[in-house]
């Protein structure tokens, strides 16, 4: 099977796997224990925290380990139920791990405004400013969109929030490892991260919480993570996460270059094969290697099935809904017609893909479309 769905998840990096294996084998101690076995685990945990903090230019005390990026989002959003100002501003193209959570928070007095985006998927800082209400207590806007790869103007958005004194959260799950991300450069209060999107293990993530920003624990019953996340820490997973984050930042330029190269091969091969395609997302403000491609006159569910049958893994933003495909809400929010919407595949390259593989993918797509 040839895998082109790295925005969904990534294969584990061998160095990360080696780290998880060695920690699992050699260090089973509970980091809360005071004996030597516990101390060793705690040292691994705190070393992982330092590695991650350094990678994103943060302080160690600003890193809270969680079970996933989704959990990190939830922790920030659920805290709103206990705030005085309970209005949240978000965008229409957020992941369900933000939008669905906000919907579920309505009975707890949390209201929200979802900002529209332009045809490239960008949130306009002026629109953000206009949407601010006296009781706005949080702004949550993703950095990189998971379907089209568009990068929001984070500095400008955060500036608007800061000028009004409103805490800013960003779901940065799709950003780390694909675009520079520094807590020094972007003065947001919270960032959510996940390990498995950057060649790390599943079931582990972390929240960056700037010093002084408030957070109510989502999971209670223990003093771990400075009372912010109860439960014995997933030490091997966290060690793997730290290694994955370290590699993602240390090798960022290499990885970006590789992805850009695969992308340009993909696009030039598509053009050579005369495939009628439209690329969605911003032409410049986007991460490399995430391609949202609409195939004129095709249906994504059919394309997906046929590619799957031939051993190619890609995905689409559309889901099974009424009829055979339900249009993707993200593409719909970008003003893309329904016909184009349901003809769209997301192809996301990764570090393991080769130009040869990309050529095979294009030729498979070409065969399906041209018959």
């Amino acid at each position, binding site marked *: 099977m040839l895998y082109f769905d790295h925005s969904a998840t990534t294969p584990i990096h061998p160095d990360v796997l080696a780290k998880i294996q060695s920690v699992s084998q050699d260090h089973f101690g509970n980091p809360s224990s005071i004996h030597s076995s516990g101390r060793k685990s705690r040292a691994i945990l705190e070393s992982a925290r330092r590695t991650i903090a350094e990678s994103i230019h943060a302080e160690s005390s600003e890193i809270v380990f969680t079970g996933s990026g989704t959990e990190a989002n939830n922790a920030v959003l659920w805290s709103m139920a206990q705030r005085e100002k309970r209005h949240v501003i978000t965008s229409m193209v957020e992941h369900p791990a933000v939008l669905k959570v906000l919907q579920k928070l309505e009975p707890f007095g949390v209201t929200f405004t979802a900002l529209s985006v332009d045809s490239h998927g960008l949130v306009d800082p002026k629109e953000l400013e206009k949407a601010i209400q006296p009781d706005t207590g949080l702004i949550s806007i993703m950095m990189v969109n998971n379907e089209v790869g568009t990068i929001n103007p984070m500095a400008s958005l955060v500036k608007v929030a800061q000028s009004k004194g409103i805490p800013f959260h960003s779901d940065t799950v799709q950003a780390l490892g694909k675009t520079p991300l520094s807590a020094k450069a972007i003065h947001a209060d919270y960032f959510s991260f996940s390990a498995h999107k950057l060649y790390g293990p599943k079931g582990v993530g972390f929240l960056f919480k700037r010093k002084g920003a408030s957070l109510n624990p989502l999971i209670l019953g223990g003093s771990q993570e400075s009372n912010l996340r109860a439960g014995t820490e997933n030490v091997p997973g966290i060690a793997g996460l730290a290694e994955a984050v370290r590699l993602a930042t240390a090798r960022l330029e290499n990885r970006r270059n590789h992805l850009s190269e695969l992308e340009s091969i993909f696009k030039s091969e598509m053009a050579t094969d005369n495939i009628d395609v439209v690329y969605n997302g911003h032409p410049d403000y986007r991460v490399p290697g995430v391609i949202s491609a609409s195939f004129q006159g095709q*249906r994504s*569910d*059919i394309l997906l*099935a*046929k590619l*799957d*049958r*031939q*051993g190619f893994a890609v995905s689409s933003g559309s889901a*099974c*809904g*009424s*009829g*055979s495909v*339900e249009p993707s809400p993200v593409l719909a929010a970008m003003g893309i017609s329904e016909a184009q919407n349901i003809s769209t595949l997301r192809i996301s390259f990764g570090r393991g893909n080769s130009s040869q593989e990309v050529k095979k993918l294009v030729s498979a797509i070409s065969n399906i479309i041209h018959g």
Partner: protein
Amino acid sequence: MADPIIVGISGGVDSSVTALRLQQEGYDVECVFMKNWDGEDDSCTAEEDYKDALAVCDHLGLPLRSVNFAQNYWDNVFQYFIDEYATGRTPNPDVLCNREVKFKAFLDYAMELGAVKIATGHYAQIHETDGSFQLLKGLDPNKDQSYFLYLLGQDALSKSMFPIGEMEKTDVRKLAESSGLINHAKKDSTGVCFIGEQKFFKDFLKKYIPAQPGHIQTVDGAPCGEHDGLMYYTMGQRKGLGIGGGHGDKEAPWFVADKDLDNNILFVAQGHDHPALHHKYLVANQVHWIGGSPPASLDGIAAKIRYRQADQPCTITDLSSDQIHVKFEHKQFAVTPGQSIVFYAGDQCLGGAIIENRN
């Protein structure tokens, strides 16, 4: 990989074994789960069924996709179902679901996905002779479902497979169990799929059709109670009439014999053998022949006027139009307008029609 057979999988044991058998025979098999009803009622078990289908497909290593035909089902099956009930008839939505959804919308979808054929877990068989396709009864006489498939045509049959049609139900369950399918003991679905159990039927119908209570009379004209609305009753129905002792002169049960829609009267007759409950003739319309045209010979044919009924010898006395006249050798109990009459020559299902009237 070769072009696949696409199995319509429901999460039940029959369609699961359908996929299993095809896989065992060496076909490339893929599965599709159809969601045909968007209700949030408790009776709708779609979510649970999907989980079962997914567990089976994961166990067998088969891809599972899901497709939603709820709008199609609503427009082409449910609307008809409601319209028929509103006129006091007793429709059979499963017959229509097969024609409109499973062997049309699903079939088309599967072909778009690149299937060579579709397969379903129906107990029926398809035989081909010289490019013409015959629908035969399922091997298991207790489970034969050809009755529900009589509206299929040559095109649908040429693209369909019923791999368990030559199996006994008990063997289907045994095979499911020995192959480790988690649903090997799952209860068969009963009743109309979107309503669930029969006991919810009245409440369900009430949501869509206003009930008009009226009088109950014996077929001789004697008043004997009130009904809740003619749509709730079907010919030959015995339970739920609310006619206690004191009516009639013997201890025999009462049955629904007829409906007078214009005057909103429900007619009942006492005793299963009452002549008002039995008819030798019926008129049916919307005739469909599986072969595409009426069979060359109608000698020795038989019919079922309800699922699982034994074949009843009959003759078609007038075949000149879309409407047919049927004469049975023996009188038939509770001939029900709206239900289907399905014709057989031995084990071959020839086609059928919708019962319009009887006498």
